[in-house]
């Protein structure tokens, strides 16, 4: 199964430069070939003990974050908000 590197890169929001593309393609295909052994697996229902999620009580807890601490790591923060170039929805 060959990997469509362009489409995958697009979905992953990554750009693979032309000079890297054939190397990436080769490596990805080798890895996928290694994974092809899975195709023969029979999916009979393996029942392992099911662990259920512990649900949280609907009680407010104090957050460790303030607007300032949010801003501290932000690449661009103005008027209390993160900033990006104009995004058309």
């Amino acid at each position, binding site marked *: *199964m060959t*990997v469509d*590197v362009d489409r*995958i*890169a697009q*979905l*992953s*929001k*990554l*750009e*693979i430069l032309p000079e890297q593309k054939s*190397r*990436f393609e080769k*490596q*990805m295909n*080798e*890895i*996928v070939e*290694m*994974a*092809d*052994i*899975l*195709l023969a*697996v*029979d*999916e*009979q229902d*393996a029942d*392992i003990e099911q*662990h259920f*999620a*512990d649900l*949280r009580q609907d009680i407010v807890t104090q957050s*460790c*974050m303030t607007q300032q*601490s*949010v801003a*501290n*790591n*932000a*690449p*661009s923060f103005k008027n209390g908000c*993160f900033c*990006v*170039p*104009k*995004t058309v929805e």
Partner: protein
Amino acid sequence: MELFEYKAFELAQMLTDKQISSSELVSAFINRINTVDKKLNAFITKCFDDALEQARIIDQKRVSGANLPLIAGIPIGIKDNISVKGLKMTCGSKMLENYVAPYDAAVIEKLRQSGGIMLGKLNMDEFAMGSSNQTSYFGACRDPYDTSKVSGGSSGGCAAAVSAGEAACALGSDTGGSIRQPSAFCGTVGFKPTYGTVSRYGLTAFASSFDQIGTVCKCVKDTAMLFDVISDKDHRDSTSVDKKYNCYNSLCSDAYGLKIGVPRELFESVSHPDIIDSFNRSVNLFKDTGAQIIDISIENTKLALAAYYVISSAEASSNLGRFDGVRFGYRAKDCKDINDIFIRSRTQGFGDECKRRIMLGTFVLSAGFYDDYYKKALAAAKMITKRLDSLFEQVDIIALPTSPETAFAVGDKLDDPVKMYQSDVFTVFANIAGIPAISVPCGVDKNGLPIGLQLMSKRFDEQVLLNAAYAFESAFEGIPKPRL
């Protein structure tokens, strides 16, 4: 003997007996780091001032007669994917080069409560993806036994630091062998507990179903001491289980009657003769202690590797989506629109291995391939787990080499991912099944490079596992210290 050469439990005794102060101890480690780290590159961030301040506080408490936990005053290193409030957390990546963690991970809260002292953040493969520590944006980490060789990864900084005496012990993370393999390379004891016993809150996620925080220490006693501190139920982690351990006080080196399963057919793939030799000698040592050796068959090694890589890449591709240049982390310059920010920040911020795994993960989850790869990988993982569970009905412990090789040269294998992935062949089982596993030094190869013996037990059987490791360690003559 230098202070940094002692084991943590020995230092704990010395502190309790007031033979040394924590300030002296921390200073000794700081000096050691300043002396050797330029050769090793184990530390990404150092927080020496803070460490000395913490040491001073601990010393004061001791002077005023307070009864302190064993770990109080002990200098510890933290892998740089665990959140420590106020310190940079880079995950070994350009993407988070300047990210300052705004909160403490659950394990860090526990360390602080018990008085453990953090010396700094340790080097790692980028976002924990790798088995050599060469993918770190901050440069490779080196093996103290031979600094031309890799430390192993992804918790390379942890293993190198503990091995070289730069920290008494360290907290790392293990997703496919990331604590055990570098421990084998650097001659330390690397332990991955049962999935769910240590909270993942504050651990940067790589593969959520496999990630566990674990310990890198000089010996099994230290391992038990540190594990007891960090293990506990945490309501902030939905996968956390309700089990509190007290392994240190119940540690016992009697292996008489212990049933040890050895899956011989797995070693067909091992080409390194020293590894087979040292493994066989270790098995014989166990026999001498009275343990019973039983031949078992695990089967499906290739399947395990494939399942591991498919599941872990899939989860990683999703977990790394949040690094998009918008709210924190690296943002590329002069972006014209939001798509530009996404693509250029991620392309510039991530290294090749990360990109490869993200793309592989995106591929196996994508429409048309999900059923073939991801769903089948989940089924394979269940199969392997069931197989191991049934084996543990016959044996208490499964023993095998930690790694099919010893530390290799820096620069090797960078361009052959499949080859690199195959070195995880012995470690991925424990992550897939969520069982505890530990690597203890069991010899050195012809070149003096350490070799690790890996022991695994069934889920929640940490006491049995640590006892077995302790029994081996007590019977084994040990390996030489690294000469730096």
